[in-house]
């Protein structure tokens, strides 16, 4: 029995493990899909992109990743909420906002909003 339980005399039925255990989200957490909030999406111009990784740093949902094989930035439609932060932060003007309904892809349709 751990020491603290003895010290504070916590009754058996109130004992809980220290901290909590959650399943590791690894790179994605399906319980927190925000891609269905999007009104606009950031579209990248790979010609202009310098792979400075500013968008990777600033995106609150880590939607931009550098693909090291192709050396291009990749965008994750399932979690991008269209907040435009990456567009504002891109120093090379490589990102532009385009209306979501212009694209048939990137559909993340939920029954209940997250």
């Amino acid at each position, binding site marked *: 029995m751990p020491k603290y339980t003895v010290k504070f005399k916590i009754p058996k039925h109130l004992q809980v493990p220290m901290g909590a255990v959650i399943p590791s989200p690894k790179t994605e957490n399906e319980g927190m899909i925000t891609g*269905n909030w999007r009104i606009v999406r950031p579209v990248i111009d790979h010609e202009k992109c310098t792979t400075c990784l500013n968008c990777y740093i600033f995106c609150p949902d880590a939607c931009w990743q550098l693909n090291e094989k192709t050396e291009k930035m990749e965008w994750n439609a399932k979690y991008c*909420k269209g907040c435009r932060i990456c567009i504002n932060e891109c120093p090379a003007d490589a990102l532009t906002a385009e209306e979501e309904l212009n694209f048939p892809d990137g559909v993340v349709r939920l029954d209940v909003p997250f």
Partner: protein
Amino acid sequence: MAKIFEVTIWATGVLQDMEGRHASLLIANAADKAGKFVQAWDNYADLPDRVNVPLRKYARISDEEIEMRYEYENEHPEMVIIMQDAIIKGMNVLWGMPKGGVLVINTKRSVDDILKFIPNKDLLSKIVTVDANSIAKVADIDFMGGEGGVEVVGIGAGPSAPLVGAACKVTDAFSLENVVAVAANKDGVKKGYEQAVVTNL
């Protein structure tokens, strides 16, 4: 128990919180003028709302007293109103709709463009499109008040007015003249009614 006409309104979080609520209030107040029993409220589970997150607002109309008034979600909406068209890509907006319902959507796009993003469109009997943002000249109005609060400048000054005006074209649960009577932007309601494009499916 008499039949209850349920309306669900989808709006963008924070930006359209007030306009979405006004749409439900316009519907309820207009039907109230015709002597119906009505209810209008915000979806409890969406509050407090967050920017861009889809919100629901509800209205109910009935000829008799609404016995289900404490059930806080519309589970079988016969009419769904969408304040911002991109929501159809992110939500199953026809959730719970019985077959033969109607969809009213604020969009500048064509009906075919919209239907591409509605996989369960066989539930619909009619779809109404109207560019309410252009008619109201604003997409969203600064938010104020709250559910149950007093709306100082009146209800329906923004896109909710033309949108509910357009909805009058496909229902007899509330009439155009009563919506005009309760809305702040009366001209907007009439323009919405005139410019609405109704497509039978």
